[in-house]
């Protein structure tokens, strides 16, 4: 490739090396690379050359954007705030408590109604606002080895967990601030039948965490089926009410591999976030997962957010191929596409007004 390109440029007046130079001298090699004559594409950015790119981008982006927007709009989403900041709110009383270790459980119920039925699987999220799960020291405050079932780390949590590594000499399992602040509200959803009966909607707690987290990253220590024994000698996190091995009764969802715990441990990127709480599986094709009508959300209110003026929400949402409801991307595509198209038009004008001289320069004959 190099050689051929060189020959192509030979006509430019480069004299070839005289053949038969028996003397070894310092004469540089006449190669395209060394003489910096590599074949090259030399785009020149002018209105004329750039114009098609803008139009093409515009024409591609706008349809994509419309598609995305429509997709996003087809997603059903319902959000209900149950923080209880107002005195009228059902959960106001519960929210007044600051304490993590309230012995007396406080429950409250919120009524809401869905105007549209949710057809496909419904994802139930809890959402927190103003919760800086991405705080630098918070993010670091965990011990991945311990969570991965390492016995050593279980007994001697990493110093990253400080000051939530030990409680009265006993190592905390799971250690660290993230685990310590785990979301511990319990949410139940009831469908209020038009006839007044409340039907509890079955909530699936399976598959709410990443498969790799559940099966690779998080492991109970020692492969011991008896979790109580496995966690022997450890202390529960200070804010927790139950030790880690009592998170669930299901063997497959207990201890470190409790999916609620795993979900919580995946620290959110932004201070306002939602985390998947439960999935409402679609039963059959005939009825919607959540028909329109009235619902009651029963909250076992444990998680204090008043200290940081946080909000707690419950979000019910269906999802599409591109995730949850988010019209932004579609709008962004449409906007960028339109701007590109517009700039393309501007360039076209420029090209027509000023570019003609350019062309004449290109074609003097």
């Amino acid at each position, binding site marked *: 490739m190099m050689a051929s390109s060189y020959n192509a440029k030979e006509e430019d007046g480069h004299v070839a090396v005289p053949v038969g130079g028996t003397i070894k001298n310092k004469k540089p090699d006449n190669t395209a690379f060394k003489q910096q004559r590599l074949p090259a594409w030399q785009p020149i950015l002018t209105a004329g050359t750039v114009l098609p790119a803008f139009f093409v981008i515009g024409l591609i982006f706008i349809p994509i954007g419309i598609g995305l927007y429509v997709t996003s709009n087809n997603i059903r989403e319902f959000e209900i705030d149950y923080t209880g900041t107002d005195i009228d709110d059902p959960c106001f009383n519960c929210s007044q408590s600051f304490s993590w270790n309230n012995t007396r459980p406080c429950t409250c119920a919120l009524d809401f109604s869905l105007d549209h039925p949710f057809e496909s699987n419904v994802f139930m999220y809890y959402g927190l606002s103003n919760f*800086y799960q991405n705080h*630098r020291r918070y993010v670091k405050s965990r011990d991945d080895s311990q969570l991965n079932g390492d016995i050593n780390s279980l007994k001697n949590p990493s110093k990253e967990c400080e000051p939530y590594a030990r409680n009265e000499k006993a190592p905390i399992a799971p250690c660290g601030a993230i685990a310590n602040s785990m979301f511990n509200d319990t949410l139940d959803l009831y469908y209020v039948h038009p006839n007044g009966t409340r039907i509890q909607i079955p909530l699936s707690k399976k598959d709410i965490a990443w498969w790799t987290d559940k099966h690779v990253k998080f492991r109970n220590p020692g492969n011991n089926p008896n979790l109580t024994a496995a966690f022997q000698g450890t202390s529960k996190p200070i804010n927790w009410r139950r030790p880690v091995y009592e998170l669930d009764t299901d063997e497959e969802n207990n201890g470190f591999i409790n999916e609620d715990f795993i979900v919580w441990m995946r620290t*959110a*990127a*932004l201070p306002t976030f939602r985390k998947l709480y439960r999935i409402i599986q679609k039963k059959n094709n005939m009825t919607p997962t959540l028909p329109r009508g009235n619902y009651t959300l029963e909250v076992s209110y444990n998680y204090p957010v008043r*200290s940081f003026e946080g909000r707690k929400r419950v979000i019910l949402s269906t999802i599409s191929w591109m995730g949850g409801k988010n019209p932004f991307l579609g709008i962004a595509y449409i906007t960028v596409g339109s701007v590109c198209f517009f700039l393309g038009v501007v360039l076209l004008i420029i090209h027509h007004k000023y570019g003609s001289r350019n062309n004449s320069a290109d074609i*003097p004959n």
Partner: protein
Amino acid sequence: MAREKTTETEVVKGSKEAKRQRKKTKKEYKTRTVHSNLLYYRTKAEDNPNRHYADNKIKTTKYTLLSFLPKNLFEQFHRFANVYFVFIALLNFVPVCNAFQPELALAPVVFILSVTAIKDLWEDYRRHRSDKEINHMDCLVYSRPERQYLERFWKEVRVGDFIRLRCNEILPADVLLLSSSDPDRLVHIETATLDGETNLKQRQVVRSFLDLDCEFDPSKYRSVIECEKPNNDLARFRGYITHSSGRRDGLYKDNLLLRGCTIRNTEECVGIVIYAGHETKAMLNNNGPRYKRSKLERQMNVDVGWCVIILLVMCLFSAIGHGLWMYQYGEKRPVFDVLSPEGTHMSPVLSAIYLFLTMIIVFQVLIPISLFVSIEIVKICQVYFIHQDLELYDEETDSHLQCRALNITEDLGQMQYIFSDKTGTLTENKMVFRRCTVAGVEYSHDANARRLAMYQDVVDSEEEDCPSHGGTLPRRDSVTSHQSAAKVVLRSQSTKSHRRTGSRAEAKRASILSKHTAFSSPMEKDITPDPQLLDKVNDGGSQMDFKRFHSQSLSQMPSELTDIIDFFIALTICNTVVVSSPNQPRHKVRMRFELKSPVKTIEDFIKRFTPSRLTSSSNNSSSSSLNRSSNRGCSHLLTSPSAESTLTKLDEERHPRGPGGLEQASSPVPAPPTLGTCYDGKPGSQEEVELRYEAESPDEAALVYAARAYKCSLVGRLPDQVTVEFPHLGRLSFELLHTLGFDSNRKRMSVVVRHPLTDQITVYTKGADSVIMDLITPPPTDSKGKRHRRILYKTQNYLNRYAADGLRTLCIAKKVMSKEEYAVWLRRHLEAETAIQGREDLLFESALRLETNLHLLGATGIEDRLQDGVPETIASLRKAGLQIWVLTGDKQETAINIAYACKLLDPEEEIITLNADSQDATAVLLEESLHYIQVKFLCSSSDPSRAFQNDYASVYSFSPPASSSSSQPFLVHRLGLVIDGRTLAYALDSSLEEKFLAVARSCRSVLCCRSTPLQKSMVVKLVRNKLKVMTLAIGDGANDVSMIQVADVGVGISGQEGMQAVMASDFAMPRFRNLQKLLLVHGHWCYSRLANMILYFFYKNAMFVALIFWYQFHCGFSGSAMIDQWYLIFFNLMFSAFPQLITGTLDKDVSSETLQELPQLYMNGQNSEEYKPYMFWVNMIDAFYQSLVCFFIPYFAYVDSDVDLFTWGTPITTLALLTILTHLGIETKTWTWLNWLSISFSVCLFFTVALCYNASCPSCFSPSSPYWTMQTLLGEPLFYLLCVLTPVAALMPRYFYRACQGSLFPSPVQVGRQLDQLPSDIRRNILSLSRVQAGSPLDLRPPFLSSLSFAGPFPKGCSHGVATSQNQYSFTKRPPDRLDPSLSGGVAGGLTEKKRCLDEEDQYTLASTETDTLPYTKEGPRAGTGGGSGAGTRGVTGAGSGVRLGAGDGETWTGPDDPPAPLTQDCQDVTLLDSSDLSLSSWITSTPLLGTPWLTTPLLTMPQSESIQLTLPPAGRDQSAAYRRNCDDPTPHRPPEHRPILPTEGADHAHNQATPTCPKEHSSLQTTLL
């Protein structure tokens, strides 16, 4: 003496010596004592007194295996940036502020340090290899057991060893010379590697060993040498040698042979090693390379400073934000605000302070750690490519352009001023004898001119084409002395070739070189004699011969013939040329009377004045001539006697002893033959050896070769005697009584000899015409005096003519002294020599006393040939906007003429000449010329000045007319400034320098003549510091070194004058013309590449860091980063590093061809257009915008979702990478496969690393624990959607801006790129248009204008002459002491002038290229304005006539002078042509153009052909300046500049035509100054 009897056994002797040595150890710190090693070979090593001295093994490596790490680290930490990065890395170990895993944070620093360390290691290894090579070179060392010299490696040589050296060997150590095969006990060495001086220097055997007849036997050596401790002073060596007899002899630097020198012309010599290895003077002088900081780097450092400030602001902002964030929670500590490890709660203020430190770590990427390393890598690659450039390779010398400074390549693209030496830089420094005048008769040497012309043709073609010249020259080494009896081939190129290389490997290449240099050398040597003169010489010789045999007085001969003979005698002997034959040094060249007398006194001189020639000189004379040769150039006047000589009473001298008295000068040598035997009477029969002349300066050699052509050949030179062979006369030996060496004050040299035929004491003087002419005896008024006057007058005329032709002129004169006169002079001269105080001044005066009342013999004209391509290079460099100043030590006339020849000055340019002899006069002159410039160019009206500016700047329409004027408040006019050294000295005074600069910078070219090396450097320094411009100094000799060192970029020509300039330079190139490609192409590329890379670097890092900064608003300013720390740290180092390196190394904005064809593109770099200060901020803003896009598009796409920190951060990293790479793509101008490869490699690398990293360990990478993140992301459509959208949105503005810029206001570079893209034939046509300009002397005119205006309907206007240069001669002829400080404005600025000064040569070039451009001419009317249509057709006819006339003889143009009246008419035509022409060029390049001013502004405000001369009377009188306006000088003159470059032209017809008188003054107007 060395061979004194010794009865002691060696061992006893040795131990005694050793004891003495031990006693002396206390003295060791002052002196060094060297014994012979042979005495100790049997004793144990510790007894050897020499054991303390360094051995000859050299080690230039910096490190050893053990010391490498600590030493290298220590050195690296000298760089501030490294300390900074290490500090940051260490900061990570502080728990409260650690942001990253501390070990990980160390990684980049360690990486950077290790890359640098590896580079250092590699360099050190290379040094080690070269050391090893040197250490293993062979030399002969005397071995005691074998009792002979054995081959040893250099490294085995020890102090005290005896080594034997043969011809052309390189000295392995500093050696005290003990024996030489030379009968004079001399050794010739070439010291080019040390001081760059290529002339041979003589070194002398230590005095005690002088009389050694048999071969020196080291085993009998018993002496002890005591000398100085090793020092680096090359010019000093002191010590003494103590023989076992107790006798002491002094040792001087003449006895010491220095390491690195080469033995020449001496078969063999033996010496004892005094200093070895690192203690040799050469090694002590060896300094490392200099470190220079380029302008770009300085600018970059400013912006690095800004980056630091931005960093601190960002950190401060975050810290305050964090404090506030903490504060808002008050006592209600939120659950996510983790306590410190100790469980304590930090106050907001303390947190803020800690956070500040943390943020510095997090944002550290903003200060690009890899920037410095990347720049270094890119520069190394750039240097590599410059080295590899075929066009910068000189086949003749097999040398590349060397980059000695690795870190200022980009400065090459930003030069604004070039300061050039003349001799050897612009010219070849190959002096060719061109013509001479003897006794008022000119011998024009037409045949020689034709021969030279032929050489010029031949040089262009291949070597095989000229077998008659290259082919007949036998190899130097294969020539035996009795070969080629018929043709004497004098060779000097063997020494030349050595000069060029000067390296260790030169011996190997000598054969190659001699082959390659075979061309040029015969040009200098084979002079075709003028038949007329040859006849006269033969005639004179035979007459003399006849007269001598008949014992007739020579005075009866015709004076012309004697003058001719004397002229050639002077040419032959009045020099310091050393003669040698190639194989057997000094073999048979000598005809010497072996007479040794140790002390030279007056008696010796007297003795030598007796009729017999039995006496001869002593060794002192040789040592003195040696001194002289080494001290050439300083004002040291050397003559024979040494300091020891005593002055005997004058009365002794007045009574010279009879002939018999001479016999008492007893000598061991048998009585030498008398003069008669020197002359064998059969000139042709003797062995014609191939003689080589080795001269200190090339013009000396040229003169000797010239004389040789007339059969007056120098065959031998001894310190006291010169042997010359004459036709008919045979060999004559001239006793050399004194040599008064050349010095720059006297500007002449003289030899005092006794003429062998007349037995008269004769002084031959050779020197600058200005001084010699003053020293000529004023001719008496009688008839004989009349003839003398006529000769004087004629000679002066011819001298003027020679100078006008750019020849170097020398006058030859002689003087015959009576013995009495001589004795008187001698007495005072010896007094002067023995004077303790002010010896130099006394010697100077003594020389002045001798050189009076001379009799003029004749004058010579030597051509210093211009190097190939110099005018073209200068023209294109000037088009590139470079101001070229020539600083030369040459005299004004020569300098001006060379300047004309190389198109530095333009015949139509006005020339301001500043010659003054006092500070006040200089001040007045400067004031006046400034005023003149203002009146003429600025105040008259603004339009013409702008027109001039346009005229200057807009050769091609797209070169921005405003650029030069905006950057410089002073407009550059078509003016030349000539200033001589003395005036320069005044002008450089701090009170005047501003004015001087004001004048100088408004001139297009400046010529400083007669400037000293110091002045050269002062000028460069002044311009550099005051004008704040980038300066480049180029030179080839030792006198340019200071200038080279002062300039921003120093370029050395590795040509004739040795290596000194090269050693001091940053770049060394074989030829001046290489400068064009180096600056215009490589400089431009290096600059634009590096500038773009630096800007990109800043952008890249700012963009990346800003992402994290935006995130701080969403994480409570806690210093958290959503980008995994691995990505964060390796992003710069790995993921985004390669593409920018490739682009920084390979990107070509414009092709090499276009850059050279359109030098205007160079202004891009001069004005720093790739990297202006504002561009940093533009880039920063763009970076912030892009990072906003890259941050907030993912932000809004993921807001209020269940995304986790690093699953969100990874797409952002990816987007940033894609955006950054696409950004680079927009900025990349040439896409080679390497660019594609590197970008795809970067992307692939990122994904590969990310996938591997995310799959490797589920629990290792705390805190991000990114297990399976990337894999998950790759399964999400959202990720791809973001990857498409974000880069587009981020780069849209830049892309759009670039497109608009390309269309609406394209930079010249862009137009050049567009030109590149055109089909090759069209491009070639367009470029040929510009080549017309480049080749024409009217280079700054738009194309066609020159040819059209000339060939238009007014050819009568083209009278041959311009009066420009005449003015100069008129006053420079005056001797300096009488010189009026005068300012002369030569004619020629005017536009109208141009028509008149076109010479047929110009037309020729124009006309020949014109044919290429004819199609465009036809196209002209279409695009042109209305007026252009007529002009276009006229252009065609004009071109046609140009062709016709150009082919014709120049004489046809000498039409009658036309009256000035129709000039205006003509000039309007010119304007019309201009307009059409301009429209044409604008149409070609399609840029908005100045066009209209040309139409509207009549360019006729310039006075027609005028010359304004400001004459200042000497200080004291009332100061008035006379503006003399000279109207058209009717005298037809040829513009002088064509003479040297056009040797084919009949050399004499111009001479017959022109008269050297000053232009007649038709009108004069007087103005009063002050």
